[in-house]
């Protein structure tokens, strides 16, 4: 059987992650109790980094799937391929994680269609099984398997929400932009920029977050601030770095771009 090497997905070096509250303990507890986990929060606030950290801490391989609306059940469970005139079954990331143990992280699960998402239901309750109809197998998850999904509840979409029948199988951890002091620390750590600039960047982010709902879909995420900081360290002028990393990334609307630009020039 053709499979992916587990070693490729195990994380060797400790990733940097600054906890916001109890999320590390909660995740560990859910893992040991064999309960799947739901991460919710806006983009760029640390969910994926958190998963890397937990995978490292628990010494488990981490398989990440970025969900989209063309994702089919086969993409998750597996399919037959033709190799040298013979058919050959290849596990999808979900089946593979169940088989060998590890964390399967489905990122932005609401982007996938509902008929795809239901595939995870038998894994997400106490049965913890994954039926693979095409091979006639019933895979049982061992104690070292964990299913984690994530989504951004801030997008008010009629189409894209998580049904109760799915949600209520999970332990939910809420992520948000870090508190100011913590966010500053993170920026400094990730980019080696000085404290004063990091402080100004945090203020800048707060201003953009104030505009959420007044024409901006989302304020600047911590990730964008790190981008800007890295560019500043590399020698780019702060206002230009903000413009490229943050302003133009957030919006295309000319009026909004102008307003955010004025905020940047006011701060730096």
């Amino acid at each position, binding site marked *: 059987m053709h499979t992916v090497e587990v070693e490729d997905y195990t994380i060797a070096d400790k990733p940097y992650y600054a906890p916001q509250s109890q999320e590390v303990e909660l995740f560990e507890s859910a893992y040991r109790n064999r309960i799947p986990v739901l991460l919710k929060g806006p983009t760029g606030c640390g969910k994926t980094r958190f998963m890397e950290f937990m995978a490292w801490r628990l010494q488990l391989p981490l398989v990440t799937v970025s969900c989209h609306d063309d994702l089919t059940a086969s993409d998750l469970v597996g399919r037959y391929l033709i190799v040298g005139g013979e058919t050959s079954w290849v596990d999808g990331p979900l089946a593979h994680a169940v088989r060998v143990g590890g964390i399967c992280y489905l990122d932005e699960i609401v982007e996938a269609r509902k008929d795809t998402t239901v595939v995870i239901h038998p894994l997400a309750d106490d049965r913890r099984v994954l039926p693979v109809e095409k091979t006639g197998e019933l895979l049982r998850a061992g104690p070292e398997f964990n299913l984690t999904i994530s989504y951004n509840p801030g997008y008010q979409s009629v189409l894209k929400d998580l049904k109760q029948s799915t949600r209520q199988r999970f332990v939910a951890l809420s992520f948000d932009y870090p508190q100011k002091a913590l966010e500053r620390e993170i920026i400094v750590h990730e980019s080696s920029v000085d404290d004063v600039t990091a402080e100004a960047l945090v*203020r800048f982010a707060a201003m953009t977050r104030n505009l959420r709902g007044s024409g901006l879909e989302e304020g600047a995420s911590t990730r964008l601030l790190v981008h800007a900081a890295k560019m500043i360290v590399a020698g780019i002028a702060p206002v230009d770095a903000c413009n490229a990393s943050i302003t133009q990334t957030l919006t295309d609307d000319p009026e909004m771009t102008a307003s955010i630009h004025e905020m940047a020039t006011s701060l730096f």
Partner: protein
Amino acid sequence: MPNAIEALTAAQVEERLDELLGAVLSSRRTATEPAKTMSALTRPEQDFALHWAGVIAKSNSEMAYQFVDRVAQAFELMDSSGVEGWIIAAMDTYDRNGLYPGSAAFRDVENFAAGLSQGHFAATFENHVGVLEKYVKGVSGRALALKADEQAWTDTETLYLPETTCSFDSVQMNFQLLKSMTAYLWAQTRFGTFRIDRKTGVPIICAEIAKHADAQRALEIFGAVEEVRVMARMKRELPGLVRQMNEWTAPSRSNPEFELFDEVVAPLAHPQSDVQDSLAAVAEIIRRKANCPEASLFRGTVDLERVRVAARGRVEKEKQLFQSMLATMAENLGKPAAEDSDPAETAASIDVHAETGDLDDWSLELTIDGEPVEPPSELMEAASSIVQDFGAMPDEYLVPAGPGDYRSGDEAAESSGDAEESPRDGLHYDEWDYRRNHYRKNWCVLRETEMHPGDVRVVEEVLEKYAHLIAGIRKTFEVLRGDDRLQRRQKQGDDIDIEALVENYVDSRQGMEMSDRLFTKSRRVDRDLAVVFMVDVSGSTKGWINVAERESLVLLCEALETLDDRYAIYGFSGMTRKRCELYRVKRFDEPYGRRVKERIAGLRPQDYTRMGVTIRHLSKLLLEVEAKTKVLITLSDGKPDDYDGYRGEYGIEDTRQALLEAKHAGIHPFCITIDTQAHDYLPRMYGHVNYAMVNDVRKLPLSVSSIYRRLTA
């Protein structure tokens, strides 16, 4: 080379003017003088003037007179685009503020021309308010209102800015100055220039300035002193901005004339200084007779009286609002009430940390029954305003007061702050005036209400009447539903295409090359549609039409429930531009249940038919829904028609403009009508292919369903 077409003589001009302006001419005021000045213009200029005189006269003859009185002078001062700008500006003033200001705008042609020559470089309020509003919201976290006025000032709720800022010869510099004015006004509200005395409820400066013998001079000194303090605070938050503003600060630091001033105000740069310190400095400066620098370019004025009035109104309101919010929270989150429990037992003990000086470094800690609770954002907003006013949270506010003391619904209406009497919770929309070729701003007021419910049996009767047809309708719609389509011979897919594989295997055994198209893919064809039905319930739909419309809706809903399309239904009518009504029958996210059926049953003929504003509003609604395809379908019995002149070409043109706006936004408009004259005007409004005419009203119910099916297949 002389003009091929000769200019009109004064007599000819006067004859035309008499025709146009007869209403406002008399023996004492004739068209002779204006005609004389106009006879000096070139023929094209005269034609231009007479054409516009006609257009203006349709709105108001007096305005037209004022126009012709000055138009010759206008042409001396400006070119034709400048003259046109003058006309538009005056008519806008007329629209907004009435006849006298409008006439004055026409008479004031010299000022307008002067402003125009500078206009190239000026930063106008109108051009930049969008950016500034967002800037203020971002920087402050509060949505402060911005309005235009003669000078820059604030009453702590609204920031008033000059209409035109023209101190430099580049737009960019003028905009930066305008932005600085805005920021400085905001900073005054933020850093406590208008801090309120807790005992009197009046801003401290109002009382203190009045104590001085020369209050006017004291106010001027206060302005200079406070500028030092506020700028010092601003510098810590917005260093980039302050660096720029310092270029426009009146000279002081290096100027020996102001040495004493600098000495007195030096302590104000301390981060903890507040307005009391500034007032103390004012007293000191007066006592020592020090000189004060002039106002910096970005500093506006302070109007003590209006500040006092605004503060007084706000303080009481916010206290009540805050306390009732606390009470409601305590009630909702408190212990589950026993039969006869006393609501007062749900005790809420609340802690607040006062501001320490940073932009938002204060916090509100809320505990209810000893449990920490996250304060909701409305409470934080109300608290933020209070803390800004008082510098701290007054203790007496922290007691929940009964929610019955305060109706929070009124608060939103009261604080709208519109000079014009604005009808309670109405939305303003522009209207297109085809004669003047531009929009009348905020011309219409639209109110959305729910359709009053009727008797649901009416709907049941309709279902009975058409029972034998409904099954058929449902079947035809089922065909349209999204389905799975299997694609064979794909390069990749979910399953193996056995047929293709077998063929290819045979081929390869024969020595031919094997294809890689050996898989099947299942593609789901999704219907991703959102539709709004705009139903004309004007008085003209009385009788058969009203019945037919109701029946159509019932059948339509039955059919739509079969599909997965998201749909909403609104009735529209109204009388005059200030009373446009929208009746909610079904919202997008509402299920088709008893309530909706009752509202359909309750559809009654109302008043008139002002379509433009309705289309604009419903377009806005549609844009908020996520769907690949958005459709706006109008069910109407005739032309747009309203009491105050919204009819004929004007009504048709405005409706057409609204539909074009909708199309630009990606919405597909469609019209279903029973008006047999529809061919005269519907093509112009909706386009040749976007309407359907049903020539027998009794056929409407069935036609609507099949038209919808064709439209969305």
